[in-house]
């Protein structure tokens, strides 16, 4: 087995100003624990309460979306893994990113949806969000990530960035990044 180069990992994280990151199967309690650690970091970082709440909210919606999707697809632990990172960019904004495996077709729809969101202004996003909120529970569940993505887009100061990398077995790695 190739030995882990922890120093290279550390240097990469430091260079990209990663505050917190996680890679692996994600459970309900792990989302909460990492969330608490994130809040503590943000407090230590003296983030404004509103910014801290936005970063935390985006992290929660991203990870809960991943959990819902993996459960709905009946993914095994390996495929249900999530990759999550919270970093600072050169302008000192917080950047929340997450990635997970999706079925290729779903991934394409997600990327298209994120592109649609990017073309909307704040007022349009709010209208779409309120409309989605008013959909019946069952319908809302079927449409999956819609409400969460709208919420993330509304909390972001720049357009969301999404990408898709094809993997084996008709799956793809979907990654999403939001700047707060």
């Amino acid at each position, binding site marked *: 087995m190739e030995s882990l180069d922890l120093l290279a990992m550390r240097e990469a994280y430091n260079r990209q100003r990663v505050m917190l990151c996680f890679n692996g199967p994600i459970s309900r309690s792990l989302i909460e624990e990492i*969330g608490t650690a994130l809040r503590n970091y943000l407090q230590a970082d003296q983030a404004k309460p509103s910014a801290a709440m936005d970063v*935390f909210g985006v992290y*929660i*919606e991203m990870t*809960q979306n991943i959990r819902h999707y993996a459960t709905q697809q009946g993914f095994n632990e390996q495929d249900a893994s999530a990759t999550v990172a919270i970093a600072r960019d050169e302008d000192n904004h917080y950047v929340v990113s997450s990635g997970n495996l999706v079925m290729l077709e779903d991934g394409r729809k997600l990327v298209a949806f994120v592109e649609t969101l990017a073309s909307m202004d704040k007022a349009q996003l709010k209208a779409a969000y309120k409309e989605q*909120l008013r959909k019946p529970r069952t319908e809302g569940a079927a449409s999956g990530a819609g409400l969460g993505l709208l*919420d993330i887009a509304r909390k972001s100061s720049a357009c969301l960035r999404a990408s898709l990398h094809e993997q084996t077995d008709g799956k793809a790695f979907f990654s999403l990044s939001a700047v707060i």
Partner: protein
Amino acid sequence: MNTSELNIPSTQSTPAIQGDWQTGILAMQGDSYPENSFELFDQVIQWVERYLNDEARPLKLELTLLYLNTSSIKAMMDIFDLLEDAHQQGRSVSVNWHYDNRNERVAELAEEFREDCTFDFSILAFEE
């Protein structure tokens, strides 16, 4: 146990909730971000429905909620819809939403709920 009273302690991801049948006050404090909010809020929604159905007295919500995930927002919207229906039928219902004045996000969240309500809905800042 008196089934008319609601008393749910908080957890890391769910708020503390108290429903006092005698005074007609439903209170909630804290963050709410469970994966499936309806596992928690269904009993609150039922309490509100039962109270509005069985009693003619006013219903008052005293909220000190902070962060809500979208799942919890959907559940809270259902509760406010019940209040709105009751208000349309001439019932006395009201909401006081208290927030720390250092965190305007909470006031914005409350304001988005208030936009869809015509009953008495106050958003009140407090200083720690």
